[in-house]
């Protein structure tokens, strides 16, 4: 076995571990951005659905994405058993684990739209359906040699595949579930159901930020020329610019440097650079992240105005920034770096690549949204609703779905006060 093969495997193994740790980031992000009475439930179900997603990926997900098939779906290599894969410069099992982690992240993002009101059974069933029917086709189209890959679509680490797909499922879910109790007033104005712990949210961003080095830099799948270093720099710069941009815009418009908004800016920068991190220069990475930080601010306000309740702002952070990130390579991909597809508009490539990117965004978003919407509608009928009862929602999903609170003393003390 040659050294490069081993080094590639080792590097991607480290990256896979980093990406799986991002699940921890999402636990903190989602619990921090929501209320105390749902904290235990949210933390627990995130681990649980990653478990389900892993099993499904092993059984069929991997085969549907990377198996031999047609431009629309793969169809072999089910129940992967750890063998090496022809033509891969690294161990097959490491590659498998890395891809499994990505599928898990996309699923976790989708569940952001379910927060604080979906039944546990909704999570369990949709975890299976999403992992078989929603994620694999899109991943196959772009990464598994499907029709968008042939088309030259640039999505280095998955702004579209992972983030936009997850966000579209979240959108379908949040529309079908309807807003949480108390989110909107009768006159249409929104209330701020503030998250219970900004420290969790900030730590989640740090965890995700570091995890993203696995996500993006690991997507090189090799140590060749240590290119992963360059990808990591772009990733870091975009996150930094997104943070600063969101803080500036919230300061300018709201008069305050809003902490949750600043954190959303960091994540938006990371999501946006995910597609383009290997194709653009460092200055473009800064610009892409900066614009993502501003977009996320207006996107959050846009959804709230339309009375779409997005508890952890998954639609804006992963959806809007995902779209922008995917389109950005159509503008900024350079001649030397565009190893897939063509250079962007600003590098003499004309509108070609931008068109390819736009087509990819539209078809993938539409597919993820429509299929998720149909699946969840059928579930809604079959399961007699996706949502817990009003009473259960008020006492909190910790109690209604699991029988104990994540913060037993605090929640009980609070309820006692209210009853008085």
């Amino acid at each position, binding site marked *: 076995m040659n050294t490069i093969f081993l080094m590639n495997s080792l590097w991607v193994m480290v990256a896979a571990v980093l990406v799986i740790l991002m699940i921890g980031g999402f636990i903190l992000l989602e619990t921090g951005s929501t209320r105390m009475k749902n904290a235990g439930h949210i933390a627990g179900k995130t681990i649980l659905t990653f478990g389900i997603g892993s099993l499904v990926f092993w059984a069929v997900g991997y085969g549907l994405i990377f198996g031999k098939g047609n431009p629309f779906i793969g169809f072999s290599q089910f129940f992967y058993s750890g063998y090496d894969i022809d033509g891969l410069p690294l161990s097959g099992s490491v590659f498998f684990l890395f891809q499994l982690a990505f599928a898990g992240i996309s699923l976790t993002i989708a569940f952001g739209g379910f927060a604080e009101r979906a039944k546990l059974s909704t999570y369990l069933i949709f975890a299976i359906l999403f992992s078989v029917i929603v994620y694999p086709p899109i991943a196959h189209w772009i990464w598994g040699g499907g029709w968008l890959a042939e088309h030259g679509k640039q999505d280095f680490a998955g702004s579209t595949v992972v983030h936009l797909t997850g966000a579209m499922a979240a959108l379908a879910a949040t529309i079908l579930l309807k807003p949480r109790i108390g989110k909107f*007033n009768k*006159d249409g104005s*929104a*209330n701020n159901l503030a998250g219970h712990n900004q420290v969790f949210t900030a730590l989640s961003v740090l965890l995700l930020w570091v995890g993203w080095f696995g996500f993006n830099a690991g997507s090189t799948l090799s140590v060749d020329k240590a290119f992963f270093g360059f990808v990591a720099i772009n990733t870091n710069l975009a996150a930094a610019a997104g943070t600063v941009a969101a803080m500036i815009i919230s*300061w*300018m*418009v*709201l008069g*305050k440097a809003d902490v949750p908004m600043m954190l959303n800016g960091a994540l938006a920068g990371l999501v946006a650079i995910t597609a383009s991190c290997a194709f653009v220069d460092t200055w473009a990475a800064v610009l892409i992240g900066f614009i993502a930080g501003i977009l996320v601010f207006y996107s959050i306000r846009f959804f709230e105005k339309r009375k779409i309740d997005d508890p952890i702002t998954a639609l804006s952070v992963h959806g809007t920034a995902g779209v922008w990130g995917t389109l950005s390579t159509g503008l900024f991909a350079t001649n030397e770096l565009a190893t897939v597809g063509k250079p962007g508009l600003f590098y003499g490539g004309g509108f070609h690549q931008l068109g390819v990117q736009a087509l990819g965004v539209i078809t993938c978003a539409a597919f993820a949204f429509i299929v998720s919407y149909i699946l969840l509608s059928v579930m809604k009928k079959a399961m007699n609703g996706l949502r817990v009862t009003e009473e259960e929602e008020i006492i909190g999903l910790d109690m209604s779905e699991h029988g104990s609170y994540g913060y037993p003393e605090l929640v009980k003390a609070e309820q006692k006060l209210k009853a008085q």
Partner: protein
Amino acid sequence: MKMVFRDHFKLNDLHDEIIKKVLEIAMIQVSTHYGSLPSPFSFFVMGSAGRQEQSVWSDQDHGIIYLNQGDELKSYFLALGKEISKGLYHAGYPYCDGGVMASNPYWCKSITEWQQQITKWMLESSWETIRYLLIFLDGRSVYGESEYVERLKNHIYQTANKEHLITKSLSNTLYFKKGINMLGKLLVETHGQHSGSLNIKEVGLFPYVNAVRLLSIKERKQETSTLLRLEKLSETWFPADGKEFYQQQFLKLLNYRLWFGDQTDYDSGHYLAINRLTKEQTKEVKDIIKNGTALFNNVRRLLEKEGSYGDE
């Protein structure tokens, strides 16, 4: 009655009338239980009532100063304070969250005890006690011996310089809610039942009230209403536009609150429904807020400059 709700001055006179009526009823109640008045006293109001800047709804802020001393007097006037609070509550004035009411021993004392308490507040001069002093300086006697409040204010002014009252008061009132963002737009509430409305109390009125109160302390005035305080202050503080200009601006703002505020209850009364204003009115509100902020910053600069020369 409807006319009263359109006229700031008539409305505040009406509030005074109601308060006096409640007080008279309370005095009868207390005298049937505890006998006749044991001492001359003053019943005074503070906060927006003290400044005669109440809107349709207002909460309670009041205290009692009585002349003689003794435990029996204490329980007599506390009973009176309790009766007044209860009466005002039934008349539609919510209780004060901070307990600034004559039913609280802290705000119901003999004049000697009041003097001791004020000295203690001055010496301690923590954020909290400075805040009490500022509340007290907005005090206005509505019944009884108005001279007691004046005496106590003079007591504060006697040691004001030594205790650096101005500097401390300044840092106590520096924070207020921003009303206009960098793009020049009004910062309305973005969430909750008052979405789209402007918190006119914190954003608009406070800068004027606080700036003018500071100057009034500086010049040791007895007046409490912002308009009257401006009347009495020397012109030197207002070089550019003159104090009359600020009086007009402040009165306009009070009227906007009265005419366009949400008058459903006390809390809502602080919110101005911007969408009910015309374009010109919105611009005027914006200008008034800008002028208030500029006034406050100017006063702050002047006072800080003086402070740094050590005249305090």
